[in-house]
């Protein structure tokens, strides 16, 4: 039996908004998930090439060690193993986008109509055509997703979200679970375990995207009023329709910029974000954290699931390879966010050092049937292992 085979795509949970797929489209996703998994193994060769070829060659020539990740990048760029791995990984990500878009764009109207039907007359979807897309989102298509989260190719388009929803399975090789909600589930369980008496009445999720990770929170606290905001209307239309179909009715999806929300001061018990801050910008990140502080009640909780931080004991090589996705899979702000300490970010908004917390989290994966348990190399930038930082506001 082969080790570590990813689950087949059709294992993911079906709901009314999930795009229809043909036999070949599913097969294409299966191929790409396997290719991603394969390349995580090929990536192991980069470290070997670095230690046995790149580094010794540099030291021999210059009589000193490589100084920083920039220098490392220039040197390793000449290495043939790094070259082939990089070009294959880039190509795989582009193919993943092509595969997803070719599924959703051919049925753009049908998906839009499904969302319209599920969303019709519901007060829990609030779109605002005056909401401006932040400049940093207009500057880049994060993770090579043409048109990003906001572009509408047809009126009331939902295809950016449908593409994201159907294809995230490929990028993570199925490690986020049937509903791709392994992050939301993990954080919900952590919160419950740490404070079994925590009973939030109002919860805010910022940068909710298509709602993958806010729904487990809403399900765990059915009496809470949950508000999920995003600037991308296609994401919100899809997120709301998906939540309706999944029978979750206590989430209100609103189009709003997290840097300037319209909520009252001290009006939330819990403010959450998941895989959000690394797709913002150098000034906005502080503005958004200020908003988090402002809308949080005294005694309220805020948590942010993010990519693993750099640590001091990380080798130069490890820092370099962790940043590969940031530049070559177009998540540019991620390469800059490393320079900000989460504690400093939170302190700048008024949170106190003694109230700060930082934990590690791993996705809860209901797709794991044991075939995933074998030793696996970490797929830098893709593995569902995260850093969670946050605080209680006091």
């Amino acid at each position, binding site marked *: 039996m082969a080790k570590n085979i990813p689950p087949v795509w059709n294992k993911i949970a079906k709901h009314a908004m999930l795009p229809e797929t043909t*036999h*070949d489209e599913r*097969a*294409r996703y*299966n*191929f*790409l998930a396997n*290719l991603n998994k394969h390349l995580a193994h090929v990536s192991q060769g980069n470290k070997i090439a670095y230690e046995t070829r790149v580094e010794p060659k540099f030291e021999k020539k210059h009589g000193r060690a490589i100084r920083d990740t920039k220098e490392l990048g220039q040197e390793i*760029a000449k290495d043939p193993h*790094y*070259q*082939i791995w*990089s*070009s*294959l990984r*880039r*190509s*795989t990500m*582009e*193919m993943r*986008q*092509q595969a997803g*878009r*070719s599924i959703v*764009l*051919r049925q*753009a*109207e049908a998906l839009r109509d499904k969302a319209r039907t599920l969303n019709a007359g519901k007060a829990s979807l609030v779109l605002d055509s005056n909401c401006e897309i*932040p*400049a*940093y989102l207009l*500057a*880049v*298509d994060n993770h*090579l*997703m*043409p*048109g990003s989260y906001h572009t509408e*190719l*047809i009126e009331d388009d939902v295809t950016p979200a449908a593409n994201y929803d159907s294809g995230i399975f490929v990028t993570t090789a199925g490690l986020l679970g049937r509903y791709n909600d392994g992050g939301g589930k993990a954080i919900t369980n952590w919160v419950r375990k740490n404070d079994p008496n925590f009973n939030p009445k109002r919860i805010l999720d910022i940068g909710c995207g298509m709602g993958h990770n806010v729904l487990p929170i809403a399900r765990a606290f059915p009496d809470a009023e949950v508000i999920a905001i995003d600037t991308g209307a296609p994401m919100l239309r899809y997120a709301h329709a998906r939540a309706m179909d999944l029978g979750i009715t206590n989430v209100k999806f609103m189009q709003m910029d997290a840097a300037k929300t319209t909520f009252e001061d001290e009006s939330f018990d819990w403010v959450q974000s998941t895989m959000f801050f690394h797709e913002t*910008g*150098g*000034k*906005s990140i502080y503005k958004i954290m200020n908003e988090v502080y402002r809308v949080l009640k005294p005694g309220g909780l805020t948590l942010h699931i993010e990519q693993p931080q750099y640590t001091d004991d990380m080798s130069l090589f490890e820092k370099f390879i962790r940043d590969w996705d940031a*530049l*070559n899979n*177009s998540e*540019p*702000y991620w*390469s*800059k966010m490393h320079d900000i300490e989460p504690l400093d970010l939170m302190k700048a908004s008024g949170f106190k050092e003694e109230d700060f917390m930082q934990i590690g989290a791993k996705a809860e994966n209901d797709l794991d049937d044991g075939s995933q348990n074998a030793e696996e190399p970490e797929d830098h930038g893709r593995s569902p292992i995260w850093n969670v930082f946050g605080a209680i506001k006091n």
Partner: protein
Amino acid sequence: MIDYIKLASSKSKGKRPYFHDDPAVERVLNITMAVAGELAVMRERMDSIERILEKKGLVLREEIENYVPDSKEIEEERQTWHSEYISRILRIVQQEMEELENPDKSIEDIANDINEM
């Protein structure tokens, strides 16, 4: 209706990084990998067909060998498939043209821009 075939293969913002000394290598590699993918897709489909036929006791290999389209509709269906197929495997050429038409900043430059936003 939108041109879903062309749009599916569009390029994302930012200058595309190339990793090989000669960009031609990258181009050919991308085409080859896409073809490899389509071969895998076909293999999965054949596997489905063979299993279903086997289950039903209906393996008509000769009939498959001799088949040609017998209606305009089928002919067009097949040709559309080819069109979509070619666009998929030649994605990188389309994207290089898009970059030529619309030269982009590097992601590093964009990161610096974004850092000021």
